[in-house]
């Protein structure tokens, strides 16, 4: 079966989505990512969507699910590289993408996650998003 590779980079997991995903493939990615967060104890998940031409309600839901489930497993999710046209469209579509951080690129996304780590060990506030 076709799968999107997930890379482990220190405390974080990185997924680079290189093609538009059909629904089954997006669902598989969601399952695989949650498994990986659980198995590796990763503290952050970076999802690079710079190659995605759209984020529709389905993809939005998948991203939201990943963020919600990762958060239960004590990992934060950052979506990086969203194209400006995609961001504009998402707002008009009416999707909030709640609980998800965004960053311009992978580097900045990593910095954002790293900056949040010491804060997190102070207080174990699970529903802090």
């Amino acid at each position, binding site marked *: 079966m076709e799968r999107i590779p997930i890379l482990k980079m220190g405390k974080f997991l990185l997924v680079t989505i290189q093609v*538009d995903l*059909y*629904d*089954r493939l997006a669902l598989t990615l969601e399952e695989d990512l949650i498994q990986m967060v659980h198995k590796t104890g990763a503290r952050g998940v970076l999802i690079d969507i710079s190659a995605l*031409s*759209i*984020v*529709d*309600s*389905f993809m*939005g*839901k998948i991203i939201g699910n990943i963020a919600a489930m990762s958060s239960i497993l004590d990992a934060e999710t950052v979506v990086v590289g969203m*194209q*400006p*046209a*995609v961001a*504009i*469209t998402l707002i*008009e*579509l*009416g*999707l909030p993408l709640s609980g998800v951080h965004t960053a311009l690129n992978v580097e900045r996304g990593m910095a954002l996650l790293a900056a949040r780590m010491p804060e997190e060990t102070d207080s174990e506030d699970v529903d802090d998003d």
Partner: protein
Amino acid sequence: MWTTTNQNKEQLSILHDRDVIICRNRIKEVAVKIGMGIVNQTKLITAVSELARNMLIYAGGGNVIVEVVARGREQGVKIVFEDKGPGIQDIAKAMQDGFTTGKSMGMGLPGAKRLVSEFNIESTVGKGTTIKIVKWKNG
């Protein structure tokens, strides 16, 4: 498979989730060909994705017909989604943000309407649903 029905109409049947991607890609090509900008292209194919997926989920599939249309000097892309599914009981309700019978978010129909220039929905319970949209190049 895409089939050309007449000089400028193309048709695709949506039967699998992969067809939704094929459909989006082809409509993007058509939008690029008439010189539509990236923001309007993205809005259009996002709407297409919502409506094609609805056909797949709620009607078990359907047909998409694409054509380039003109209004004076301005060109646009017109798309018809037709299915022979169960139809929609209460269209006004289905068009509201957050209404879903599929335990989803209920954003597809109202969101798609906001993203295009023209949106027309007709549905008969037991017969099916037809949705027509137009996105003008600068609309």
